[in-house]
């Protein structure tokens, strides 16, 4: 880009490019802009403008009917000052623990077992592994609300193996509702993480594994020295995808717990909707949405930076 800018603003020696060539280049640039313009216009009108409008609303007090009033950082102060809202962000981090850290840990252990071996029937297995990620989250929520119901299949299995004390109303329990939602997230994302990591492992040259074995490395050393460094970029990608999923889980919360019991599963993504369309505090809801965006932005940047440079 810089070179084209310079070329456009500085007179080009006549011997290299006459006025004809310069006109040609300008025409080409115009054609390029023409191809980009429709998408850009669409993107600006339906994404960028609403986003900046949201940022503006986050500095206002507004109920959707009476005129907006500029209140500066008041909405952000209310969020920081309220235990309920701070808890909602804390819940998001608990969910990241399940969606990202638990998913990644399990997937890495499985990949460690797998090593460089080729899996038979991978096309079919991959189709199955992706399924929980593809299926409509509302459907996933409805399905798990049944699976985790007080007399649902999960509790039936627990009772059948003699763990009667463990059976409970998972999604209606103050202590267990948030981890239950988290485990649904792990179920949704585990296959995706596994397939991406397997794709990464299969790009590792097999000689590296042979060399490690010749050096007498055990399975743990082999995993730490060969597998883990080989899938670094896949780990970064899975982290970004799963963190984003953990922070944007409106659908799942909406159909499983609605933030309850009490406020035990309230998350920012659900509070934006509730505050905006039921409470009618649009300024606060917008501020919550902006904070959510910042959180996604910061966590994505933190994850992607190290391997971009390397």
């Amino acid at each position: 880009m810089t070179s084209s800018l310079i070329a456009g603003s500085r007179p080009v020696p006549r011997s290299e490019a006459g006025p004809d060539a310069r006109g040609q280049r300008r025409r080409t640039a115009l054609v390029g802009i023409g191809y980009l313009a429709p998408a850009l216009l669409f993107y600006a009108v339906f994404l960028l403008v609403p986003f900046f409008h949201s940022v503006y609303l986050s500095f206002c007090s507004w109920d959707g009917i009476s005129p907006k009033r500029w209140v500066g950082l008041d909405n952000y102060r209310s969020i920081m000052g309220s235990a309920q809202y701070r808890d909602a962000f804390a819940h998001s981090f608990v969910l990241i623990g399940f969606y990202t850290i638990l998913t990644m840990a399990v997937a890495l252990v499985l990949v460690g077992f797998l090593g460089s071996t080729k899996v038979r029937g991978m096309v079919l297995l991959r189709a199955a592994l992706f399924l929980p990620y593809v299926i409509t989250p509302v459907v996933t929520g409805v399905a798990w609300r049944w699976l985790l119901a007080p007399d649902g299949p999960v509790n039936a299995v627990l009772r059948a193996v003699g763990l009667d004390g463990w059976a409970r109303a998972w999604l209606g329990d103050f202590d267990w509702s948030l981890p239950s939602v988290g485990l649904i997230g792990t179920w949704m994302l585990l296959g995706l993480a596994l397939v991406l990591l397997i794709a990464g492992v299969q790009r590792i040259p097999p000689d590296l594994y042979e060399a490690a074995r010749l050096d007498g490395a055990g399975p743990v050393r082999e995993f730490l020295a060969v597998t883990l460094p080989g899938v670094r970029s896949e780990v970064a990608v899975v982290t970004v995808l799963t963190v984003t999923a953990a922070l944007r889980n409106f659908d799942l919360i909406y159909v499983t717990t609605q933030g309850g019991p009490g406020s035990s599963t309230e998350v920012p993504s659900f509070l934006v909707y509730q505050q905006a369309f039921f409470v009618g505090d649009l300024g606060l809801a917008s501020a919550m949405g902006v904070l959510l965006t910042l959180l996604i932005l910061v966590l994505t940047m933190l994850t992607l930076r190290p391997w971009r440079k390397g």
Partner: protein
Amino acid sequence: MKTTRAHAVTGQLVVTCAAAIAVVPLLGVLIMALREPDTRDSTIRLSDSFHFSNFGAVWGLADLGAALASSFTVSITATLLTVLLSVPAGYALAHFRFPLRNTLFVLLLAGLMLPNESLIIPLYFDFRAVGLADNLLGVILVETALGLAFGTFWMRSFFREASPEIVDAGRMDGANSFVILVRLLLPTAVPQLLALVVLTFVWSWNDLLVPLVMLSGGRQFTAPMALAAFQGQYATDYAYLAAAAILTALPVVVVYLVLQRSFAQGITSGATKG
């Protein structure tokens, strides 16, 4: 030799178990959907007769016909629009030099990180002002915009990797940029286009927040909206809920299974490039 075979068996076992964990709960839903309805009993067991009539019952009770029709309208139109807009945009970013090109690309890329939650409030109030609330067109426009960031990024990486000889040969023959795009480049882009189609279709079908807010007037609703509302009414009628859930998910599952190679390719390489 023995250890490698043991290794291979463990590996096969591990992946198969993971696939089973993914599929078994869904099979449970399938069995539940065929049980006798309205029992308030959520335990799973194979009944002596399959109640396929559950599907017909929820079709009427949840108004799923209308809901699925709306969802198809939204997803198909949004997918077509996304492809139509992101192909030329990716082409422009890959093959043309113009001022601010990289800045515009980064701006589009940032769209991958914008959550719907940060757009929905202004969208609702602005769309209501221009008559796009309670209108499928409003949902289509937003879903298209949400798909564009990925679509443009995805097509740009294809066009950057497409062999320059094709473009050069076209130029030698005096073909203009549009002919080069449509006649020479796009025929080689079929796998990438299919990946874009399946991903956009799945994402726009699955979204709940945008249609829930945009169509809050209640005149029109998408399939996920209908299922969520149905659960509100029939909270413990698990056989009916399971049947409605299956009908809601069936279109995305079918599209996904038909195009599953493209889907996997899109997620795997798209994600790694990002």
